[in-house]
């Protein structure tokens, strides 16, 4: 029998194609929530109730997945993003997340928001072995792969940030006498614990520690107490409203300490401007996201893309709200993680890929800050850079710092 060249090549290529497609077929693996056409992702966010100002994060993430779907999805799969309102009520979060996992059968949850709410579902998600990725909380307990291999945080935690301030104070300020203003809740306490840990043996340098409740009208009396203590360093752990108030008050009563401001209040328009630019020159804070209200990023390529995205997908969103930058960056990371999974969309592989980012550049993060994770490192963004307020914007200085607190 004569085999001519053409039939031989044709047969060979057919065989290659067949085996190739079979190999591709064998590679496709799915758990609940993933198919050839769709990936289901669950999310909870307080759209109502006391913390509803965070609701914009959920809306922005939803808009992000819409933009991904308009681009053709992730590896050809549409993202079906199911977001539920938990009202910042942990009991309700449990209901919502059980619905997401057991009824809607999502592949994973993503960026569920709040410390108490995530605590309520922490055990459940790990018992069910459903990935609980990039949770939106600054607490330090989300990167513990030994006990909770299915949970991963995202942002640098408050604890780590406070350690960095403490070290900077010890290295740069002679005879530091420190006064601390702190919001009396879990967020404030995380900073407080980290700060004391960072000072270590020098913890005696804290000469005054005052607190306020989030419902207080002013913190004037607290600032006066801090001044009277003779402190020359002011560690300011407060949300924007009180941060602005306290720094303005300090200037008014002619108290001029070195001010270390927590990252929570690092925005120009919500904190620095109301405090009065002349009152906040030289204030130091740590940052990891680009502040959309800081004019130094006006010409930045990433922020330009972000602004275009905002105009198209969040036409009513406030361009000065850093929460939109946050949502954009964390969703980008999720998209990259899903892309890396390829056609192996099992929960196990999703976790493996989430824990396998090497120096991934995520838009919205400061220059020089990247995302790195490993099977033992479940803290995606760990670096911050110190910045000093100068004129009307922040001036980055020093190196990008990495700190591991836990």
């Amino acid at each position: 029998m004569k085999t001519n060249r053409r039939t031989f090549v044709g047969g060979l290529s057919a065989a290659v194609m067949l085996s190739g497609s079979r190999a591709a077929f064998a590679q496709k693996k799915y758990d609940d929530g993933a198919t050839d056409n769709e990936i289901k992702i669950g999310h909870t966010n307080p759209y109502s109730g006391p913390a509803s100002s965070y609701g914009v994060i959920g809306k922005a993430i939803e808009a992000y997945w819409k933009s991904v779907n308009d681009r053709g999805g992730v590896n050809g799969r549409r993202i079906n993003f199911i977001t539920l309102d938990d009202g910042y009520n942990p009991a309700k979060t449990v209901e919502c997340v059980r619905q997401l996992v057991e009824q809607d059968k999502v592949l994973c949850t993503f960026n569920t928001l709040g410390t108490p709410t995530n605590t309520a579902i922490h055990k459940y998600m790990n018992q069910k072995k459903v990935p609980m990725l990039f949770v939106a909380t600054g607490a330090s307990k989300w990167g513990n792969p030994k006990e909770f291999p299915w949970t991963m945080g995202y942002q640098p935690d408050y604890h780590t940030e406070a350690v960095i301030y403490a070290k900077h104070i010890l290295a740069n300020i002679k005879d530091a006498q420190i006064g601390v203003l702190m919001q009396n809740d879990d967020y404030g306490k995380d900073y407080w614990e980290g700060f004391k840990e960072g000072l270590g043996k020098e913890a005696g340098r804290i000469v005054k520690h005052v607190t306020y409740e989030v419902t207080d009208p002013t913190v004037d009396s607290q600032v006066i107490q801090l001044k009277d203590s003779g402190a020359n360093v002011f560690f300011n752990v407060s949300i924007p409203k009180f941060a602005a108030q306290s720094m303005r008050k300090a200037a008014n009563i002619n108290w001029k300490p070195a001010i270390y401001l927590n990252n929570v209040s690092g925005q120009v328009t919500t904190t620095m401007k109301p405090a009065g630019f002349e009152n906040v020159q030289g204030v130091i804070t740590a940052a990891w996201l680009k502040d959309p209200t800081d004019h130094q990023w006006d010409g930045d390529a990433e922020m330009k893309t972000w602004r275009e995205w905002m105009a198209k997908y969040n036409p009513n969103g406030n361009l000065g709200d850093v929460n939109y930058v946050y949502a954009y960056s964390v969703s980008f990371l999720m998209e990259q993680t899903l892309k890396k999974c390829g056609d192996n969309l099992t929960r196990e592989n999703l976790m493996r890929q989430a824990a396998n980012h090497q120096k991934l550049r995520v838009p919205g993060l400061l220059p020089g800050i990247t995302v790195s994770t490993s099977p033992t490192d479940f803290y995606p963004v760990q670096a911050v850079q110190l910045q000093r307020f100068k004129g009307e914007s922040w001036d980055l200085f020093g190196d990008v710092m990495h700190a591991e607190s836990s």
Partner: protein
Amino acid sequence: MPAFPKKWLWILLALAFLVPLLQPLLPDVVSNYRLFLVSTMIIAAIAVLGLNLLTGFNGQISLGHSAFYAVGAYTAAILMDKLDMPYYATLPIAAVMCFIVGYLFGLPALKLEGHYLALATFALALSVPQILKYKWLEDLTGGVQGIVLSKPDVPFGLPLNEDQWLYYYCLVVMVLLYWAAANILNSRSGRAMMAIRDQYMAADTMGIDTALYKTVTFGISAAYTGIAGALSASAIAFVAPDSFNFFLSIKFLIGLVVGGVGSLAGSVVGGIFYVLVDNSAQALSTFVKNDLGLQFDLSAYTVFGIILIVLMYLMPMGIVGGVYYLVRSMRSPGAKAREQAALKQRASS
């Protein structure tokens, strides 16, 4: 309001006990998530039942039942967390604890009536989450971080899963409490409670110790709601101050009014209602937006509100009252006509 027919009660009970056993046959319909949801409905029903005893049968308004719910939940959580007590043993202690708190709160409440009592209980609801965060209590309550618990284990090696067991546990507790409430209301004390509601002065004149009845009712009501709180601590396996905000009180009140004020069966319906609507309101609002293509960005609570208004308009006596009158008019279609004829006759003569 009329009592619920006994025959139906037994049929419903039998169904409630049998349905979870159908899980192997219909795994998608009787899913663990649905059983869990029904358990939360039962818990809500118990809380509403407690509020109904106070508001529906004794005429005292409370906006503070989220506080008793929180006290019950925290009592159970602390006992389980610190003393390693089994979950079932915490129920009576939570009940006693809440009875005492409710009774003590009932004493000053004697001087307050109507709106003033509502305001005082409102203050209670606002203050309890704050007190739970207080630094002196932090070692006990865990502060803002709350307390993480484990879910109830299935006892005696029964062939049930966790959610099935939780369901039966809640159901049995509710049946017992329902039975107890029905008996209280059927007794001399129950009649005294209702007499105080209907005609305070007449009740006082007839020799009813109004102060005692009002404070004890407050205590019993708080105990019921506290038991619901303790059950919820087991069901959710986590307590934190954020779970017990003031809005919870409003939800109990919504359940009470929608189900039927002054009706035991209404409490159960009300509890089921608010969990159900609370859960489906959001689904409904996305349905309106995405599937019907209407450009209304209705928030879930707007939908919830619309449903409430429609319900109150159609069934001003609550669901149980509405259904009762519907059934009655259906049973005797001629009744209305005869009534009208009688009226006409009387008018003409």
